[in-house]
């Protein structure tokens, strides 16, 4: 088979999946069927990534001038597809309770995933924007999906306007750099950004706008205000999708554009990123302290976590990118676990999701297994050893120490210490036994329920396994770094 087709196979399969599920909806509205088609399609896409990964053996394949399927792209595609599958597994059980049309959600998530895959492979400004919009626009629909809920429309509109604004800023930034350099492929853009300085005002302003646009997508402080509102408004599986798939896509672009690799980066950009990273982790942690809504708390926690990840952007070298790979994997699994438990507690969907911390009170006594998973995942988010979250944090602190970026290291330490407090608040509620004779909640075990449970169990096992034996994480994290 043509090498280029093989390399693009994941995107093609995903596109086919989206079209296929659209077709299925047109012929017969059936929730399980649509969900099944999408899940099978995504599995095939994942398989094709793995096949092309083995076939190409890690060397980069340029597909026209627009896309570049290298090991970074393949690593990111695996992450995106695995996370998407995780979220999709949660959907059937959850949306069974929705009274409107349930099937289109799979369409929206499918298109979003296609966008994330495009972003992972983008090597040109055109594909970059295409991917970004493919990823953002379906999310507007997905956030506002449960239209009978009071906050949905507000959340959707907020996301639409701010996301469009961010895309426009990013586009403007690209245009300014283009005006100076005359090139639109990401490699030359990255080169131009790396040389940004006071001597070249156009590039510097362009780089700043580009950074702001990406910072919005990754919800770095001070571009974070939308995050808690939108996360709160979205139905839970979509909330799970936002900080994982959407942010991975944007982060790969940030890595390609802003990370210096082996060459030296522009000091201006590096200090801007350091500022964003410190602000994100500290402000994110501090604002999470007083939240009583678990969705908002996790939104702030995701801001703080991407603050840790931003550390990596500011540090040169392959080691830093490897740390980013390690951190991303551990963060994705953990987030999937936390949101997964929340989704299962809230399934089937009702008037509102279970999102108040009080609603999780004494969960350990009502639903011991779910609660145990939630506790493990929260400890992982807090970065306690024996969980994957610790390994991710270890990797980030490690590169920070190596590069002698003491402010960043201090920021990570302080933010983690604050973080423990709010994760423990949730754990406290979960283990608090208010009613000693509490009955276990009996849930009808259907296949959809079992699918979600299996996914969660798998995520927990992987979290603990990687926490105890992190060697594979460091080996695979390296693939994000191959030039």
């Amino acid at each position: 088979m043509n090498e280029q087709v093989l390399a693009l196979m994941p995107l093609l399969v995903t596109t086919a999946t989206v079209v296929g599920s659209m077709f299925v909806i047109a012929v017969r509205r059936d929730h399980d069927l649509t969900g099944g088609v999408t899940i099978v399609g995504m599995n095939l896409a994942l398989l094709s990534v793995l096949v092309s990964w083995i076939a190409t053996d890690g060397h980069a394949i340029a597909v026209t001038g627009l896309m570049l399927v290298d090991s970074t792209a393949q690593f990111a595609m695996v992450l995106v597809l695995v996370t998407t599958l995780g979220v999709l597994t949660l959907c059937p059980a959850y949306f069974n309770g929705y009274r409107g049309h349930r099937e289109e959600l799979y369409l929206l998530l499918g298109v979003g995933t296609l966008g994330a895959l495009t972003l992972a492979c983008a090597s040109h400004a055109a594909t970059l924007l295409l991917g970004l919009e493919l990823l953002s626009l379906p999310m507007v629909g997905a956030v506002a999906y449960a239209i009978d809920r009071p906050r949905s429309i507000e959340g959707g509109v907020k996301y639409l306007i701010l996301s469009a604004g961010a895309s426009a800023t990013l586009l403007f930034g690209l245009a300014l750099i283009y005006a100076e350099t005359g090139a639109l492929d990401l490699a030359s853009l990255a080169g131009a950004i790396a040389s940004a300085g006071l001597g070249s005002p156009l590039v510097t302003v362009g780089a700043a706008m580009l950074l702001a646009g990406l910072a919005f997508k990754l919800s770095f402080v001070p571009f974070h205000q939308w995050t808690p509102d939108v996360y709160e408004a979205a139905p839970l599986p979509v909330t799970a999708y936002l900080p994982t798939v959407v942010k991975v896509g944007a982060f790969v672009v940030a890595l390609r554009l802003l990370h210096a690799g082996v060459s030296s980066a522009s000091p201006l950009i590096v200090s801007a990123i350091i500022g964003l990273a410190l602000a994100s982790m500290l402000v994110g942690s501090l604002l999470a302290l007083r939240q009583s809504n678990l969705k908002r708390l996790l939104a702030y926690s995701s801001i703080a976590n991407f603050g840790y990840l931003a550390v990596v952007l500011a540090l040169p070298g392959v080691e830093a990118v490897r740390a980013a790979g390690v951190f991303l994997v551990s963060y994705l699994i953990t987030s999937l676990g936390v949101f997964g438990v929340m989704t299962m507690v809230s399934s089937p969907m009702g008037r509102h999701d279970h999102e108040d911390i009080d609603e999780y009170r004494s969960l350990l006594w009502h639903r011991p297994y779910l609660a145990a998973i939630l506790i493990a995942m929260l400890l992982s988010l807090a970065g306690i050893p024996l969980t994957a979250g610790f390994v991710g944090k270890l990797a980030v602190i490690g590169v920070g120490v190596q590069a002698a970026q003491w402010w960043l290291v201090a920021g990570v330490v302080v933010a983690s210490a604050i973080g423990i407090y709010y994760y423990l608040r949730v754990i406290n509620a979960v283990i608090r036994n208010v009613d000693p004779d509490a009955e276990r909640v009996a849930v009808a075990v259907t296949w959809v329920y079992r699918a979600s449970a299996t996914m969660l169990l798998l995520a927990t096992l992987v979290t603990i396994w990687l926490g105890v034996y992190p060697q594979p994480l460091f080996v695979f994290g390296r693939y994000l770094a191959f030039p």
Partner: protein
Amino acid sequence: MTLVWLILIPLIGGLLSWRGERMAPAAPRWIALVSMLVALALSLWVWATKDFSFTGAGFSSVAGPPNWTIEFRATWIPALGASFHLGLDGLSMLLIVLTNLLGVMAVLASWRDIDRDAGFFHLNLLWNLGGVVGVFLAVDLLLFFFLWEVMLVPMYMLIALWGSDAPNGKTRSYAATKFFIYTQASGLLMLVSILGLAFVHYNATGIVTFDYHDLLGTTMSAPVEWLLMLGFFLAFAVKMPVVPLHGWLPDAHTNAPVGGSVDLAGILLKTAAYGLLRFGIPLFPHASIEIAPIAMWLGVAGVAYGAVIAFSQTDIKRLVAYTSISHMGFVVIGIYAGTEAALMGVVVQMIAHGLSAGALFILCGEIHERLQTRDLREMGGLWTRLPYLPPFLLFFALASLGLPGLGNFVGEFLILTGTFVVAPWVAVVASTGLIFAVVYALIMVQRALQGPVRGAVADAALKFADLTRRELAMMFALVILLVGLGLYPQPVIDAVRAPVQAFGAIYTFPAAAPTAAGVAP
């Protein structure tokens, strides 16, 4: 493999007793008791059969890397140069025996105290004990940090789930969270130091490693050594606890269940002293010698502060908690004095304090079980009501104040004489702690046991039961051990002589002065 089994037995026992609850309500207790007894037997067997006398045990010697009585190494994270490396010398062996012994006591003390979810309780208790044993064995810094943190979560659960809300309005979740944040935040500082040390070593040699053998004797510039040393020092100072970083301890103790308190005071605090001895000082000898006077005075502050505050407590458990601060102050002084006598004293003091504080916490639990209060103002005249409990309380109070003939006296006396040689004023001021100890110990005895019957003692008069056979057996075992340690401490001293001498060499023969050309990270 013996070392791996020492860690695994409590972990497996914990899992079994968790699952065992489904079979019978009493199963978790028996499974936990049996596994701790097996672990204790295994550690005693190691003590009895292995040789702990060769020189340089556990620390770098002139001849080269540390020697271990038993060593175990397996690959773990080759990408980071971290391996599953365990080593046992006389010091770690004694502390493991203490851990397993107090583990048995903690299980026994929880026999009636824990009346719900016994399976999950014993899972947490045994995992905590397993983590502690691991801390005493790990000689890979990353592995050490891992196990150091693994101790935390189970302890948090013990306090948050089975603790009691203190009468002063502080809830158990408050105490548990405070404990967790203190230890975790300081632990992160240690992690940064560990990573910093590894990278200094990497820059000097080009090898990424976290192994204790390799990192010992890393050359670095004086400021870098100071910074890295402080990371370790702070982590251990919080856990010890050194005043003014002790804020978590009284609350954690007041709210913890009896078994948790025994574990916390008897074992967890010792991990900090062990960490200083094994890692904090040998890895950064020059900076440690420079900080020694400050650390010793902090120890003196702890001795005096703990004693004075203990005196003014009305909650008997809180009182005992503050005495721990006072006693661990002596340990800090001894560690930084660094003479052979002082270090011997440190080891004896750690064991004696583990036994006496453990016993006192068990007695506090038994008093609380019978009176439903721990308030000393509500007690009085216990002696007229009970034949067995009061004499034991008096005995362990006397042990705590350092009565000659008991283990604590040997420890404190050795520490003070050993310190007097190098820092006379520290020894002089610290010995006032012995006087304060008499005051707080006797006031506790006086208020609880003597005087007219009143308060809760009078109210509870009808349903009063004295110590059961289980409780009597525990108390007698601890009494015998404490008297034995006081009258014939030789076996302990023999076991730790080699490590103590090797450790003391850090102070007496400082290696070449820190090179100014050391590598910055």
